């Protein structure tokens, strides 16, 4: 029986946090947010050098032999740092390729696992992260299956002014393209790939929400008004306690959803739906509460809380709203 992190898992999180701390500080985030790029090669290479692309792959596939849970722990740190790049798309694509039986498609795996080939999700929406930099797009095949589309001919990309400045989207249209089949309609992997993405989005939301809570608590300890650190006032103290009460118990929901996916439990899909729905609600509430807790400084561009708020907007809408996933979870529960 084990339902908390091992020291190795804590070490993975520390490594990702440390790496992003070095290459993705607030200055870089500000510069990226005001720039035109939809991808940052330095932070991407730093993450991929840690083996993030292949973390959840079996060792036989050149991966680390860990699981979706460990990938979720990485995405949590990516969310906390508001790091750029299609990290979730990359990990999900690697998992899909590792389970794919088509040898021609599988040939794409080494490039994705190493991070040399950048893969992004183009599911259920034509607004796609890092579309101008990705070489592969994971999409539905129009018949209920999944496929990978290569960047290039037939892929039209239109730049847009993206709300989420740390993971800018572009508008993508697919014409006559080079496609690699992954899973045909009816293959259980179609849902498993989607479930993995939902769990990782929930993990990113968890990391972002925790970061916003931490920032708010730190600020409340140092900011003084009426001659006191404002965190001494019960009104704010209770708001901060409620932020923590929203975020900390939800951590175990993410762990369970990832564990259920790894272990192939019967309720894995339902757990993924609940994790996505619940954590995106938590993220929305927490980013709003964090800005309120900070007061004026939180409303400025300079302070940067808005980047996490903007990520929460993307996470919430990505692959279906909380209400849609609650409806799915209810169906899956058999109510």
């Amino acid at each position, binding site marked *: *029986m*084990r*339902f*908390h992190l091992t020291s190795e898992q804590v070490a993975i999180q520390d490594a990702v946090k440390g790496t992003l701390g070095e290459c993705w500080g607030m200055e870089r985030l500000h510069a990226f947010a005001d720039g035109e790029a939809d991808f940052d090669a330095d932070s991407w290479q730093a993450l991929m050098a840690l083996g993030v692309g292949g973390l959840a792959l079996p060792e036989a596939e050149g991966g680390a032999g860990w699981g979706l*849970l460990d990938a979720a722990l990485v995405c949590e740190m990516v969310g906390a740092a508001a790091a750029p790049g299609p990290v979730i798309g990359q990990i999900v694509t690697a998992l899909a390729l590792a389970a794919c039986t088509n040898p021609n498609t599988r040939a794409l795996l080494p490039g994705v696992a190493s991070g040399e080939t950048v893969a992004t999700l183009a599911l259920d929406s034509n607004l796609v992260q890092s579309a101008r930099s990705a070489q592969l797009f994971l999409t539905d095949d129009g018949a209920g299956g999944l496929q990978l589309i290569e960047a290039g001919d037939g892929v039209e990309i239109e730049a847009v002014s993206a709300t989420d400045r740390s993971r800018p989207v572009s508008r993508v249209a697919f014409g006559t393209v080079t496609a690699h089949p992954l899973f045909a309609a009816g293959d259980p992997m179609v849902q498993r790939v989607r479930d993995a993405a939902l769990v990782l989005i929930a993990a990113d939301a968890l990391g972002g929400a925790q970061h916003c809570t931490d920032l708010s*608590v730190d600020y*409340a*300890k140092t900011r003084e008004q009426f001659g*006191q*650190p404002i*965190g*001494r006032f*019960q009104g704010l*103290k*209770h708001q*901060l*306690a*409620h932020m*923590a*009460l929203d975020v*900390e*118990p*939800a*951590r*175990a*929901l993410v*762990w*369970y959803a*990832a*564990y259920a996916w*790894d272990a192939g439990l019967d309720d894995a899909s339902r*757990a993924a739906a*609940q994790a996505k*729905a*619940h954590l995106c*609600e938590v993220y929305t509430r927490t980013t709003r509460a964090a800005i309120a807790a900070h007061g004026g400084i939180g409303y400025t561009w300079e302070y940067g809380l808005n980047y996490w708020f903007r990520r929460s907007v993307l996470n919430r809408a990505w692959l279906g709203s909380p*209400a849609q996933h*609650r*409806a799915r*979870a*209810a169906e899956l*529960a058999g*109510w």
Partner: protein
Amino acid sequence: MDLSYGAAAEEFRSEVRAFLAAQWQPGERRGGELKDYVRDFRRKGVEAGYLYRAIPRAYGGSEQPVDVIKAQVIREEFGRARAPMELGGNGVNMTVPTLLERGTQEQKDLFIRKTIEGEYIWGQGYSEPGSGSDLASVRTKAELSADGTKWIVNGQKIWTSQGMQSTHMFMLVRTEPEAPKHDGITYLLLDLNQPGVTRRPIRQMTGEEGDHTFCEFFFDNAEAPVSWQVGERGQGWYVSRTTLKHERASIGSADGLGNQFRKLVELAKEMGRIDDPLVRDRLGEIEGRVLSHRYSSFRLFSCAAAGDDPGPIQLMMKLLLTEIGHDMALLAQDLIGEQGLTEPAGAGARGYRGPRGPNKWLDQIMGSLGNSIAGGASNIQRNIIGERGLGLPRDLAMSGEK
């Protein structure tokens, strides 16, 4: 992550199952016969090392090394067989651990065995009409008798569970009125069956006013031997902080909430509302929090088994439970609609109440409010999370608290 308990635990499970198959066969026994059978069964459970594991053999326990996984397997198997486990209540949960840690030999000999065998039932004497969240302000006073052998107690205690049944009370009394408030309190045990003690049930907002509800107690020169004082005179506040967490972590600690949620889904079906998208959405939202609570209880259990510190999550479980209870109450109220305009048969009393309709949810709708108050009010929980969990500076009014 791995939610299985491991091979050693499964081997132990077979052993517990064999014990239960051989020893728990109550058959058609009823009344006094059943009571005797249960008492004998509990003794066998102690002999086998399954019950009262934290209590030394000298006082009627089975004195087992701490093992939360074994304790969990025992709970699961006894539950499955519907076999009686340890007695609950304040005596077993609070008096006995406190005496084991802080009691004198005489106190242990006098009280522990009779408490775990159910002969002594303990009421808690902490809250007073003027001392709720500010517990250390208790004013019920105790003074030494002229010959120095007895404490003479005067004052009032309130919100004592099981008060009508209680034979004894563990209480906080002020013995040093001049000392700072935390340092003038003594922890005292008292026999409740004496002329100086009057008890009265409190009628609650639910209408509940029976033998099993909360009581208030009035002390008018009630007496306790000085040897029934636990710990040093004036150190009672610190004695009351004694909390033994021996095998306290339980993976099923969230099962009650999960069962209540399932009943809420059943209620939605019964009321013909389960296909209403608004109802489904609210149920889904509540379930997200119910599952977070459930898996967090797994996390706490896992940390306890490994001896790791779970961090602030352990400070949040009570408030989380309370808040989810409120959400369920609000949805239940909408679901029962006009059915809530009449009270169910036997409302406000315990025991058999006859067939009850959807309006039985009135108990939960009102009872959930009790959770905001009992065992540390919600605003106190928020302070604890903020100050101990997040490290925020202490409230100035409470900065003398310990």
